[in-house]
Every structure is written in C-alpha cells, then in structure tokens.
C-alpha cells in the first residue's frame, strides 16, 4: 500500500521536477535546434512510457496486495498481449530513431561554403588557427612542434605561411556563417564543447576530426573540455565570442600570421633603453625587490613576459581595485604603450642573467612536496615552467611574491578577468590550498627546487 503510494508520488514528483526544473538546455546559439527537437521527442516518448508503466505497476501492487484467501491467476504467457506490447514499443523506438538519424545525416555533412577553423587541443588549453588569405590551412606534423612553432606547421608549406594563429583560449566566430571546426590534439584526447552550440566531437592525437555548425546568436559562450585529459581537465576552459563579421575581421587582424611568429621578437638594444624605467623597481638585472613589491623578472620566458605585459596594458591584469601593486604596474605600462615596445623590452629581459632569489620562508617541506604534486603537472617537477602548459617557472622566484600571487588568485584579484584565459585555471588550482599553513609549506618546497 505504502509502496504503491510512494511510486505514484515518485512519478508525480519526477514529472513535476521535469516541468519546473530550472536546469534545462542552455539557450541555443547555433543552427542545431533540430537536436533540441530530437531531445524533446525522446522526452515525450520515454515520459509517456515512464508514467504509464509505473502507474500500472503501482495499481497492480495496490490491487493485488497479499490476501490470505486470494490465489494468483495462473497465466504462463499471452502471445497476443506480448506481440501488441512489442509492436507498440517498436513503433515508439522508430519514432525516436528516424528523426534522430535524419538529423545525424545533416550533422555529418557540412555545407560546401563553410569556413574552416582549426582547434588545437593540448593539456590544458586550446589554440586556434585560421587559414589566412589563401583560405587553406598549412600542413602540420608533430615533428615540427616546438616552443616557437606550437602548431607544428610545416615551415616549407607555402599554404601555412599566412595562417593566422590565435594563442589563447578565446575563439571569435562570425555570426550566421557556417563553420567547420577542424580539430587536432597534441598530447591526449580532448574535446571542444560549447553547451550553447550542442555540437561536439573529440579531438584525438594522430587524427584530424571535425564537425560543423552555424553560430546564430551574438554573445560570449563557455567552452569546456569534455574528455578526461588529466589532472587539470576541469580547468580546461575557454570562451567563444560570436560577433558580427566586421568585428570578427577586426579581431582576426590583431593576430599574427605563422610567418610573423617565425621572426625574432624585438630588438634587445632598444629594449635596454626602455628597461631603464623598469630597473628602478625590478632592479638593473631584473632580480626583483621586496621593498618595492617587485618580483624577479629575469629568467622568465619571453612568451610569459609578453602575455603579462599585454595583460597589464589592456588592464586584464591589475584591473581589480584591491590589486594595489597590480594597478601600480598597469600604470607603469605608459612606458610601453605598443606591442613593439613590449617585444623590445622582453627581448632585453631575455638577455639578463638568471639568479635564484633569496628565500625567506622555511616550513614543512615534506607536506609541501605532496602538495606540489598538483602543481607539478603544469609547472614541471623541477618548477622550471613549461611552455606547453603555458605555465611560468616558479623555482627561483621570490617566495613572498609567490605567496602574494597565490592569495591574489584565491581572492580573484588576479585571474578573474574574462580575457585572462589562463587565470581561471590558476584560480581553481589556488583554491585547493586550504590555509596559510599549507601555502607556506608548498612555497617551502618550491624554494628547494
């Protein structure tokens, strides 16, 4: 009796939850509304079966509850009934399968006029490549991949020279234009999933996969990785910005071609004169200065310096009102107003000697070592950083600065800007450090590297 009532209530509750659920498909932003239709068809068919079978069962439990004098009806089989039920089920299945296969047919045939964009997945971020003027993506192979050529573009392929490279997690797409996302993975299997687009396919190392869609709504949408790809899988996030074709063209023009990235960056001699204003805080050899709250900048890789300086310039870093020192630095960027100036000074800093900073923190190194396991995946077992994961070196940096930055990440003072495409990763990771004690232990271990 109770059981029958509970089953009825559960059925009602399930239907109510379904109707009232605030958790539902994200508002669609692509042409794949047909996928939503197939989901709805499936909900109708399965929902009717769910309600009907369970209510029937609840009724049977109630109606045929145990009575001492009752005998069950001896009923070995009923061919007619079973055939009817089987037939109805087959119909229901067909009602779901047929539209599904039709939409799948569309999904796997991209329209002829669709543009191509390459998505390159790696631990734990994506980079993007547009075909450039010739409309053709250059050949690639893992053997060409290096710090200077992360896409692995064949330098001898003329089609690759004008390919436009986007370093960073944020992809811009023009609205109302079909696009075929061509996907490669550098290391392990990844995915490029935008819930608002509905469509996704894995990217697999050693293969090129693809799918197509047509963005239909201007806006910013989250990208998430949907195949377990290692420790920081959950932090592999990005953004897709859908915008008008004009905005898109302007955005694309800001990015270098492959040929441009193969040029040496900046001129160290020009950079030296620019560096004079930096030296007052960061020291003549970039060794940093605690009194001025200036970190060590010598020994940092050029790609990291470039990114941070551009972030300061665009107020992606140092934007938060609580980030006093970050704001100071952002103000100082008046000295380096252009990309070229940044490149010059970076080229100069690259020539400075790399001496480890003095240490001030000394706590439980063994606990620190076990905590560092989470950091090591990106920053390396030796703390030397890794261009592949976009992780700067930690070893040799001032320990007070590391602590300050970890706290900034935890509080969202650093990394929470929507354009800081690696900041959110570090924010999530910094939050796994639960207290001051743990942070000091961790830094003690980094000091030992």
């Amino acid at each position, binding site marked *: 009796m109770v059981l029958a009532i509970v089953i009825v209530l559960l059925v009602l509750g399930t239907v109510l939850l379904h109707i009232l659920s605030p958790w539902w498909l994200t508002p669609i932003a692509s042409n794949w509304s047909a996928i939503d239709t197939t989901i709805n068809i499936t909900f109708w068919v399965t929902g009717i079966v769910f309600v009907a079978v369970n209510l029937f069962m609840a009724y049977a439990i109630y109606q045929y509850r145990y009575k001492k004098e009752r005998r069950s009806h*001896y009923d*070995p089989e009923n061919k007619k009934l079973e055939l009817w039920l089987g037939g109805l089920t087959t119909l229901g299945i067909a009602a779901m399968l047929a539209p599904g296969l039709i939409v799948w047919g569309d999904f796997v045939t991209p329209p002829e006029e669709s543009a191509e964009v390459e998505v390159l997945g790696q631990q734990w971020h994506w980079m993007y490549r547009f075909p450039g003027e010739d409309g053709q993506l250059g050949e690639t192979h*893992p053997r060409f991949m290096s710090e200077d050529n992360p896409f692995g573009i064949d330098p001898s392929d003329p089609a690759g020279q004008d390919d436009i490279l986007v370093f960073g997690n944020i992809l811009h797409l023009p609205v109302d234009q079909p696009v075929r996302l061509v996907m490669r993975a550098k290391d392990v299997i990844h995915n490029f999933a935008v819930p608002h687009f509905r469509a996704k396919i894995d990217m697999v190392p050693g293969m090129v996969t693809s799918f197509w869609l047509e963005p239909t709504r201007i806006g910013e949408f989250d990208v998430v990785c949907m195949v377990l790809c290692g420790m920081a899988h959950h932090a592999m996030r990005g953004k897709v910005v859908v915008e008008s074709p004009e905005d898109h063209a302007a955005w694309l023009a800001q990015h270098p071609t492959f040929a441009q990235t193969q040029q040496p960056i900046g001129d160290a001699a020009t950079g030296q004169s620019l560096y004079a204003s930096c030296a007052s805080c960061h020291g003549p050899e970039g060794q940093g200065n605690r009194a001025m709250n200036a970190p060590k900048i010598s020994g940092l890789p050029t790609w990291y310096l470039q990114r941070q300086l551009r972030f300061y310039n665009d107020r992606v870093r140092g934007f938060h009102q609580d980030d006093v020192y970050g704001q100071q630095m952002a103000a100082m960027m008046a000295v380096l107003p252009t990309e070229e100036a940044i490149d010059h000074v970076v080229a100069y800093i690259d020539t400075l000697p790399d001496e480890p900073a003095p240490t001030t923190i000394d706590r439980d190194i063994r606990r620190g070592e076990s905590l560092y396991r989470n950091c090591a995946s990106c920053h390396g077992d030796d703390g030397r950083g890794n261009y592949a994961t976009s992780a700067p070196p930690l070893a040799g940096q001032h320990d007070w600065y590391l602590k300050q930055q970890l706290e900034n990440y935890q509080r969202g003072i650093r990394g929470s800007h929507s354009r800081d495409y690696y900041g959110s990763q570090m924010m999530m990771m910094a*939050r796994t450090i639960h207290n001051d004690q743990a942070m000091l232990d961790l830094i003690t271990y980094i000091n030992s590297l």
Partner: protein
Amino acid sequence: MSYTAIADQPVHMHDPTTFVSKYIWSQDHKVIAIQYGVTAIFVGVVALVLSALMRLQLGFPDTFEFINPNTYLQFATMHGMIMVVYLLTALLLGGFGNYLIPLMIGARDMAFPYLNMLSFWTYFLSVLVLLASFFVPGGPTGAGWTLYPPQAILPGTPGVDLGIVLMIVSLAIFIVAFTMGGLNYVTTILQARTAGMTLMRMPLTLWGIFIATVMGLLAFPALLVSAIMMAMDKLVGTSFFMPALISLGEAVDHSGGSPLLFQHLFWFFGHPEVYIVALPAFGMVSDVLATHARKNIFGYRMMVWAIVVIGLLSFVVWAHHMYVSGMNPTFGFFFATTTLIIAIPTAIKVYNWVLTLWQGNIKLTVPMIFAIGFIFTFIHGGLSGLFLGNVIVDVPLSDTYFVVAHFHMVMGVSPIMVLFAAIYHWYPLMTGRMFHEGLGKWHFWITFLGAYAVFLPIHYLGILGLPRRYFSFADTDFIPDTAHMLNAGVTVSAIIVALAQLLFIINIVWSFKHGKKADPNPWGAASLEWQTPEQPPRHGNWGDSLPVVYRWAYAYGVPGVKQDFIPQNVPTEQVMMLDENGAYQEQEV
C-alpha cells in the same frame, strides 16, 4: 537420465574436516560463493567511500585538503573500476553464480571444484594487486575507469608510474580468474543438470547467469588484448595505441598507433560487460518477483529468448559509447539502430515483470520491495538510455552528467537493488536464519528514495551541460548558482544513502548469530535450491540421492492444487489437489 554419474556419488564427496580445508582452501561451491561475496562487498564498501569523497568535493568544493584534482581523479577511477568489475561482476557471477547454480540445477557441486577454488583465489589476488596501488608512490591511476590512452600512460595523469601498471596487471589477473570461473559455470549448467531439469525448466536466474557467463567469456578477451597492448606501450615502448605526439612539450618516442583502436577494443568488452552485470540481475529479480507475488513469471519463454537476444545484440552495439569519439561518422547510423533495437527485448522484460505482479498475490517482503524498487529504477535508467543510444541526441549529452546519471541508475542503483533483494531472499537459505525485517525495510526506504534523489536531479545537470569527471565547476558562466546548490543537496542525499548501508551490514552480521531460526522454505519458493534436505545445505547439497525435477520453477497458484506452489521436485502424483467441493484429497494422476 541427465543427472551426472560423477556428481551422484556421495562416497566421493570427501567432507572437509579441518578449518582450513573447510573455510579457506575450500572446494565447496557454497563456501567459495561466500568468499567471493565477502571479498566483493568489502571492495564495494571501499568504492562506496570513494564515491562519498567525490560527492563531498562536488557538493562542498575545496573543503577537504586531501581531495585535490589528482586524488579526485584517482577516487573516480578506482570507484568506477571496482564497482563495475570487482564488485558487480564478481558478486553476481562469482558469488550468486557459485551459490545458486549447483543448487538450482540439482547438482552436488560445480563440475570442476578445484578450478573453482583457484578462480576465487586468483580473484582475491587481483583485488590485492588493485588495492596495492593505493600504497605505491604516485598512488592509483586517475585515468578514468575507461583507461583511455594516450592519457592513461602519459604524465599529467595521476598514477602514471605504477598505478596504471598495477591496474592493468590486476585486470589481467581478474580476467584469468573470471575465465576459470566462467568455464566452470557454463560446463556445470550444460552438463550437471539433474534428471528432468530441461533447459526451459531452469529458473530465469540460471538463464541470466548462463548467458552472462558466455558473454563474459567472449568479451573479457577484448579487455585482455587491450590491457596487454597498453602494457606493452607503457613498458616496452611499442606504439599500438600511441601516435606521434608531444606530451607536456616533449616529443615522445611513439608513432603510428591509434587511440581509437583502444576505445573499440575497450567497448567491445565494455558494452557486453553492462549486460554481464544486468542479465544475472534480470534473472534473479524475476525469481524474487515470482516467488513473492505467488505467481508464475509472466511469459517465461519470452523472458528466456529476450535474455538470449540481448546477449547476442550486445556484441554489436559497442560503438554507441563512441559517437563523439571522432570515429567514422557513418558508423553512427548502424550503431544507433542496433542500440535502439536492443531496447525492444529489454522493454518486453520490463512489461513481463510488471505483468507478473498483475493478478498476483503480492507479499511486500523485504526482498520483494527491493525487487519492485529495481523495476522502478530500471525503467528510469533504461529510458534515459534511449537518449544516449540515439546518435544525434547523444551529441550534446555525451560526457555530461546525463551519462553519469544514466549509467548509475541502470548499472549502479538497479543491479544493487537486485543484489539486496537477492541477499535478503537467499539469506535464510545461506545461514538458516531470518534477517531483521524492520531494519531491512528501513534499509530499503533510505536506499531507494535516497538513490533516486541522488540520480534523478543529476540528469538535469547533464542536460544543462555539466561535464563529467570535473573536480570543480567554479568559474563557469552557463552553470547557474542553483546548480551548485543542487550539487550540495545531492551530496547530502548520497552521504545518507552511503551511511544507510550500515543498516544492511549490521543486519546481516547480527542476524547471522541472533536472527530467528528460518523455516526450511520460508518464502514458499518452488525452485530447487529451497528443497535440500538440510538448510543451509550441507556439503554435497542433496544427501543420499539427487532430486528429480517434474516441472518448471514457477508453479505458483496452479489451479486445483491445494498449496499455492508446487516445488519442482514433488512428483506429480504426490501433489495435493482440491476436490470439487474445495476439500483436499490425495489424488493420483
């Protein structure tokens, strides 16, 4: 006569005398079954604790220091692998298969008792190797239970040094154990059935176990092949699954391998594995339903055929796990069709269970309410499978929490409902005592309602687009705050359900010594395992002579018969009939 000459020789059954030969190196199928069961439940509890830890992180992020991205993935991997392989497969086939096969077919023991003992101890070894990975440097592997290469054997994944190697070795040992056990179950069912036990007179439990075992024998080799090849990639440096790639900035010395090949192999095992778990559960729940509804199982023949058809079809649906893997898209048409076809025999089974209740005389005992709970959760899990089986619907939903919810409902909650039903149902037979009814009901209500409260809402998180295997959902725009609150609620339910399992453990341990003495056939079951001379059955099961079977296992409520059931081994002429006035009389047929 189909009874076996070898089995029916009580003189040959040396009763074990010492403690060691009776309980440790035992060759008695019943003791081996208990050994399997206890080991499996033990690792199952480990896996349950792991899932609670994961839920804590999801519900209350960054509260516990020892749960970090590395350990979270390790918990997830070990939880999945233990639950699917080391708990469900081992308990359903090694535990219940071992216990019930000889008793239900009327044999004295398995066809090869020594092999049976070896099978258990090999399984035990695989469990030890698996658990050892918790204690090696770097910990167990965190590659997800699917162990996809290249990730499983590349840095950036937890446990890449020793954890993954131990996992592969443990799986290989498990497969050897399963093959030894499986050959035994299949041979015993085919060869050692007692006189009159035709194939179609077998209880559905045996059909489920039989087909599942055959499937296991043919599917586990795929896992073994992939494990061996991955071990070679990892240890010898071959390139079966490893293409040329750049791992964390460094080129690795591989080229020409295919990660998708592993996925095909894995799921060629992995999908049948779902049914290896499901079919014995289908069988056992059918018997529990019929017994406690006091009614014959409806459409027995259709139930048997459905089991066989599901078994066959499950070998041609594997790539529905790979719709978005980047495989040839034309495969999608084929596998979506086969996958949805498999829903038809499965649906028929559900209808027949419900129709078994119809016009029955339903006793809502503890095993029965668990069985009904199974029907409810299985309907739910089966229907959500229709979303994921249909290729285009799977595209937005794959790798989201919808998948998590679906397979936990259909492969987690449902078979575990059956396991509880089966343990409560056969507990009096195994121990000779009754469990505590009240505790059993509390256990049911908390587990059933709690588990539904855990997994129903998770479907909606999946529709929203939450990816699975995420340590943290912070900093995402498309996930509203209510979803985080929901996660906290789900965690609370999950912890309550996990704690409620203590009721179960207390119940079976306490009742073992203090439970009420059970009647010989407390449920009035018609199948053969309840008809042994002593209960619990002694070594050799059947005393001096084997039983002879006269009818099927579902003679409940046969018209004109005095009792509401007729045991399989009661000769027709001894059945007590009603006369025309409704009075009893001995009747000769």
